[in-house]
């Protein structure tokens, strides 16, 4: 018993102690280390949100104000010209930010509520509850979601609430899959078993043991889901079965002004008009992807 070195002490063993810092300090330190792409993404997102929130103040004309000549060229009181029935494209771009992003955000939240809720239920109770929900989701996922959305829209019509409900339902299957998978990984952890052995209730286990540990992947998924929902809504609107006029929306704006592209050789700027809302969509998606990439790298790195 005396062979051990005298110097050993549990306290002095080397652990990787991080300096104690407040949450705000830590966030700030991480932000300063963030790569250029992440900064780019965050600035773009902030800008979009700003535009969406202050759309009324920023837009020079009303959303559905069609009191101008059709297809007016760029400049001259209308930065990006006017559309086929004489609405100011710049104003509609601004309102479109609010409408498209707002609807996509609401849809994503709803999808997480439905998908996440069922996933946690399935992960914790396992057994037949899990089997039934999972198999049901498998079947739903066997139909491509855009196709499924088209079918449901043909039944329920293209109102905004229907759109939100349908896409939220379809996307909740993806949320379910992911949440269930990450939750399953946590549920089998011994600290969850320890909590069960202690006699903790289901609510406590879900709230205190599981949720904090599945948050990072879920936050990342929220970003990705949002951009996916956003793209789906844009696609549906582009196809003419999504957000309906006169509500301004980027997808339908592309559709409305598509024919302008044929005039690009005569007026290059006019030819660009349908690309503007499409580019706005792409820029936001890229921005979200950049931020999510960085976030994923940070959170998975922290686990080490």
């Amino acid at each position: 018993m005396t062979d051990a070195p005298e110097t050993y002490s549990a306290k002095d063993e080397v652990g990787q102690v991080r300096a104690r810092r407040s949450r705000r300090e830590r966030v700030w330190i991480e932000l300063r280390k963030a790569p250029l792409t992440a900064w780019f993404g965050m600035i773009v997102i902030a800008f979009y949100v700003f535009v969406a929130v202050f759309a009324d103040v920023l837009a020079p004309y009303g959303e559905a104000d069609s009191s101008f000549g059709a297809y007016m060229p760029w400049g001259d009181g209308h930065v990006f010209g006017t559309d086929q029935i004489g609405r100011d494209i710049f104003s509609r771009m601004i309102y479109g930010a609010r409408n498209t992003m707002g609807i996509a955000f609401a849809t994503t939240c709803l999808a997480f509520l439905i998908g996440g809720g069922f996933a946690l239920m399935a992960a914790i109770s396992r057994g037949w509850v899990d089997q039934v929900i999972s198999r049901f989701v498998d079947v739903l996922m066997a139909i491509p979601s855009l196709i499924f959305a088209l079918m449901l829209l043909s039944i329920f019509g293209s109102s905004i609430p229907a759109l939100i409900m349908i896409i939220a339902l379809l996307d909740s299957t993806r949320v379910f899959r992911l949440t269930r998978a990450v939750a399953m990984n946590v549920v089998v952890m011994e600290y969850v078993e320890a909590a069960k052995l202690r006699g903790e209730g289901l609510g406590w286990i879900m709230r205190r043991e599981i949720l904090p540990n599945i948050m990072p992947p879920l936050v990342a998924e929220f970003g990705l889901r949002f951009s996916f929902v956003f793209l789906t809504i844009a696609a549906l609107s582009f196809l003419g079965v999504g957000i309906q006029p006169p509500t301004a929306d980027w997808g339908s704006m592309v559709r409305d002004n598509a024919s302008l592209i044929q005039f690009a050789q005569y007026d290059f700027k006019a030819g660009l008009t349908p690309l503007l809302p499409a580019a706005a969509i792409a820029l936001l998606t890229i921005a979200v992807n950049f931020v999510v990439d960085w976030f994923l790298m940070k959170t998975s790195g922290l686990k080490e």
Partner: protein
Amino acid sequence: MSEDLLLHMKDIVIDGFSDEQWHPIIKGVSLELKRGEVLGLIGESGAGKSTLGLAAMAFGRPGIRLTSGEIWFDGKDLMKISEAERQALRGSRIAYVAQSAAAAFNPAHRLLDQTIEASLAHGVRSAAEAAEDAKSLYAAMDLPDPKNIGFRYPHQVSGGQLQRAMTAMAMSARPDLIIFDEPTTALDVTTQVNVLAAMREAVDRFNTAAIYITHDLAVVAQMADRIKVLRYGEEVEEAETQEMLSNPKEAYTKSLWAVRSIQKPAETSDDYVLEIKNVTAAYGTVPVLHDVSISVPRGKTVAVVGESGSGKSTTARVVTGLLPPKEGAVLFNGTPLPPELKGRSKDQLQRIQMIYQMADTAMNPRHTVREIIGRPVEFYLGLKGRAVDARVSELLHLIELDDSFLDRYPGELSGGQKQRICIARALAAEPEVIICDEVTSALDQVVQEGILKLLMKLQKELGITYIFITHDIATVQAISDEIVVMWMGKVVEQGMKDEIMQPPYPEYTELLLSSVPTMDPGWLKGAVAARKELSIAEQTGEA
């Protein structure tokens, strides 16, 4: 340089990439190896032994770079020659035997094709010759049906057999040097003996030099002529095996023996706090436990020992209520416990606590030490606010830590500290029985000793009963009062430590005990001879 010097690594420095920075992993280690000599590299996790071993082949895993130093192999500096030239040496002159044979064999190809692959690629011999040679190597490695086993796929043979096939694979081109990287760590102890013997024999027969990497001193004692001890990427000391075993110089080296030095007189009592009565249990329809009965005397330590699949962890699950038994019951202080976890009262749950093997996964990484230990205090004892903090602080001192740990997250603790926090969490419930499931297996030797001593101290002070589940005989020797030997879901025997450890043994106990390597370098030969007489050895599936 002397004539028979095969490998000479000089002042090797190796860096690893993590946290977006290069950190030194090997900090200037030198190493010499003569032809036909076996060098044991020993050290604990993170000592850099595998990295150094691979560096002998001038190979770095992704995220590893060989920063400086010279690697002289048979007159050439491997750091200076081209990658193509290094490639020509690997597999032909220097071969590698990996830790997990199951992962290191390509699942898509037959054993034979993989065995002779290096010989063919380096043009050592023709395919037909190499195949014939492989069969004789299989025979030499004591593999069953050596003529045909090569036509099998990796998943069709057992782990111990694969490990032997991999040694044959390394031997195929008759290299001058083989790197053995923890080749038996993943094997059960009764399987390990034969694999060790086969490897030793092969190395001797072809007079191959070898670097044998392991964390197990007793294993290296069987395999190596010389031993080098590494720690934190630096050499601690090096000596001939006999010399090192009998007379280690450095305190660190001595500490590697630490657990084996703990001695505790066995005591028993007739007052049983917990009785497992005729328990039969199954996962679904797969039976795991058959009529298991174990009695646990109050305030003592019962060690449940067995290999993987023996049912020892399942027994713990039955006691805790996670796996309700098909038949039988668990009596606690004479009254039967409800079989299901849900049926048990808070008080019953409080009395039996559990400590896990992996402290990493046993603590929520998003809770602080204060929350982890505080929760059971709050939950079972109903304390609030200040009182909780005071109790947590008391518990921290009990496990030889202090208040500076209160706000740390598990990720900020060392392995030993984590396990101590887990012990404190169990103590916080003020239990009568603590089930310790392989609690020291994942820890380094010195830390293991500290944890075991702490557990013994707590038992003395608080009168706690331990059910200590382990596969490690040294640990059993150190702390148990009574021993239960389990095998294939059955209890082979239960008794006082001194009785169990003395002959006469039931056959399985004898096999198990005789398979545990000792520090005596001559042990291996005797063990192999002894087990040939045991009919039960056939049943372990690896003979």
